[in-house]
């Protein structure tokens, strides 16, 4: 069954029924993608200055399962945490793939681009005795990609490595491309880590319809289009001025330092880890989808004045 862009958005933007079941992707979307998987452009996943948390979060996808994602949706040809090969065998495969699918593949960047010290702070590999830095990789593979998926706070905006005093000259993909005049479009998928639905959903959308509509910070509107505070289940407490003064108390979490009033995401309805919980229910939002995190929101556990 073909699926329209409109139906797709319904599933993800939350006006559809399916979203109440923890952001499950309609089986129709999976089957539409499945038909195309053999011919789908591959995803090449590289890691800069990061923690592998985005990869771990991707593995947490529930509907569809990660097995379905890898077998039916994403043609993941290179991923350092998953792949069998090591060393030159692995890197040679990456260069070969980038040539074969030049202009067609999606490059997923997890972690920052560490630009200080000539790139020496992050060397993801070595080829024929030459160190390949994350800077080299982003220049080479970034310029040949159809689009870059800038994953997590780090890939999108520099995240914690870029926090003051940014000892490694860490940057997100967009800033790095700006510095080097690389014109490849970038889709930011921030979060620390991003929700698996945001990653799988964006890739699925891009494969079927092209680049989704982005907000001013380069994020897909279908996931990052709503203010947490305006939609928060604890909002009525805020309006009644009932504030939690300590963890475990009922009430709005703003006094504890909640950054929901400045954060855009759909965590409030999507929930985390199969919707068993989410940050504000547990304690508070720390603004991990926003440019400027963590410095903009630090100290975390203090009421924001903004």
């Amino acid at each position, binding site marked *: 069954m073909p699926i329209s862009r409109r139906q797709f958005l319904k599933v993800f933007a939350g006006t559809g029924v399916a979203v109440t079941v923890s952001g499950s992707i309609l089986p129709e979307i999976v089957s539409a993608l499945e038909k195309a998987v053999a011919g789908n452009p591959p995803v090449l996943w590289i890691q800069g200055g990061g923690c592998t948390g985005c990869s771990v979060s991707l593995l947490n996808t529930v509907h569809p399962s990660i097995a379905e994602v890898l077998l039916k949706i994403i043609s993941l040809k290179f991923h350092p945490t998953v792949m*069998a090969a090591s060393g030159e065998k692995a890197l040679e495969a990456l260069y070969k793939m980038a040539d074969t699918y030049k202009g067609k593949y999606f490059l997923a960047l997890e972690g920052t681009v560490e630009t200080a010290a000539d790139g020496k702070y992050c060397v993801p590999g070595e080829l024929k005795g030459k160190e390949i830095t994350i800077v080299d990789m982003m220049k080479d593979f970034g310029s040949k990609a159809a689009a870059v998926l800038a994953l997590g706070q780090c890939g999108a905006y520099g995240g914690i490595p870029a926090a003051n005093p940014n000892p490694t000259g860490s940057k997100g993909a967009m800033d790095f491309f700006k510095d080097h005049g690389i014109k490849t479009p970038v889709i930011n998928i921030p979060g620390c880590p991003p929700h698996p639905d945001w990653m799988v959903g964006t890739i699925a959308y891009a494969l079927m319809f092209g680049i989704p509509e982005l907000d001013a910070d380069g994020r897909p509107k279908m996931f990052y289009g709503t203010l947490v505070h305006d939609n928060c289940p604890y909002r009525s407490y805020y309006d009644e001025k009932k504030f939690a003064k300590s963890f475990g108390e009922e009430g709005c979490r703003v006094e504890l330092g909640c950054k929901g009033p400045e954060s855009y995401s759909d965590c409030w309805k999507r929930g985390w*880890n199969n919707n068993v919980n989410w940050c504000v229910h547990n304690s508070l939002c720390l603004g991990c989808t926003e440019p400027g995190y963590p410095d903009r929101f630090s100290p975390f556990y203090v009421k924001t004045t903004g």
Partner: protein
Amino acid sequence: MAKLVIDPVTRLEGHLKIEVDVEGGKVKDAKSSGTLFRGFEIILKGRDPRDASQITQRICGVCPTAHGTASVLCLDNAFGVKPPTNGRIIRNLILGADFLMSHILHFYHLVALDYVKGPNTEPFIPRYEGDYRLDPKINKVAVDQYLKALDIRQKCHQMVALFGGKAPHVYGMVVGGATEVPTVDKTVSFKWRLKEIQEFIDGTYLPTVYLVAGAYKDLFGVGPGCKNLIAFGVFPLDDDQKTFLLKPGAYTQGKDSPLDQTQIKEYVKYSWYDDKTTGLHPSKGMTVPDPNKKTGYSFVKAPRYRDLPHEAGPLARMWVTNPVLSKNANKFLGADEKKEIRFRDLGDKAFSILGRIAARAEECKLIADAMDKWIMELKPGAPSYVKADIPKEAMGFGLSEAPRGALGHWISIKDQKIDNYQVCSATIWNAGPKDDKGNLGPIEQALIGTPVKDIKNPFNIVRVVRSFDP
């Protein structure tokens, strides 16, 4: 003599390069290089101390809860606060669930492909060719389990999130305890999932580990390493943190001794840090990168305990605690089913590639079974958290364990801000370079003598390295 460089060593967290010299079919010399520096300890300076338990989790996306735990223990210690019983138990449950996730992920998704031939499609090809010894039927079972294990590890993260808010990178542990007051429905939800994980560990993971081990028995004799072990203790069983499920302790040159954290020093002669910062205890530690230092070959420091390299991780914890093993071990060793086999009964076999893998699987069961009891010790409705003020000036430390080994955080607070924060993590113990005296790091030492049959397909090198779960 042949020089062999493996960079990147894939299927691990972070960036690791291994360089070995091979002579007469065996490794003669080895270098382990961490090729990533992010500068967390520099970034933490001047911040609100409470932010440390969030920021340090981002050191590792596979073991954030371990950093979260060490950090809140460090802050508890500096703030002078004792979390209530519920807080201690919730922290144990969050960390425990992440241990289960990490151990299952490690066996099935990080190391299995060194023993099991994956499907003939990317990203499972290219791969090393040759030394796959499993019968095709068993190989297929293992590949099917790869997929099943993906689902199981994802459910472990649901357990982490039930009390942690989300996973990876949790919000549920803070200085003074945990953020959630336990409810009956959460308890049931947690226990229900744990039951499924326990069934997988008992019925699938553990038997498969011994089944695979049976086809690679010689690997119980490869990669012994330094045979010095260190464990910081994890999963406190009382609110004063005096007793632990997995005990603290050291095993040095064949002798057991109680852990004394003052005996830790970090050396940097062969690391890309300023030489003036070498030989410091972490409470006085400094992080001054020098990426062009000629003698350096790693961004990892070389921590030493009593000036000797020590291996950290499941092998160290199981050796120090020496618990009774599952009945799979009896079968494997050909011992009577009624006999109690303890970890040290493995003898020298424990110090090997497969010894580490078996230790991890046995520990996984031990933790899951303990969690099943802890969850019932929670008191629904009772507090999990006590409020604590930031001290004007204080020092503190927190010792715990990541799935991959001993982990410590040290803080010094001035004017209610972080003056210094130092992390000595599991992978630093194991994957660090030589120290100032030239002693190899544990992974380097474990590589010495490793047989390399085919230099183009150096299976045993990556098997040794990955057995540490770096």
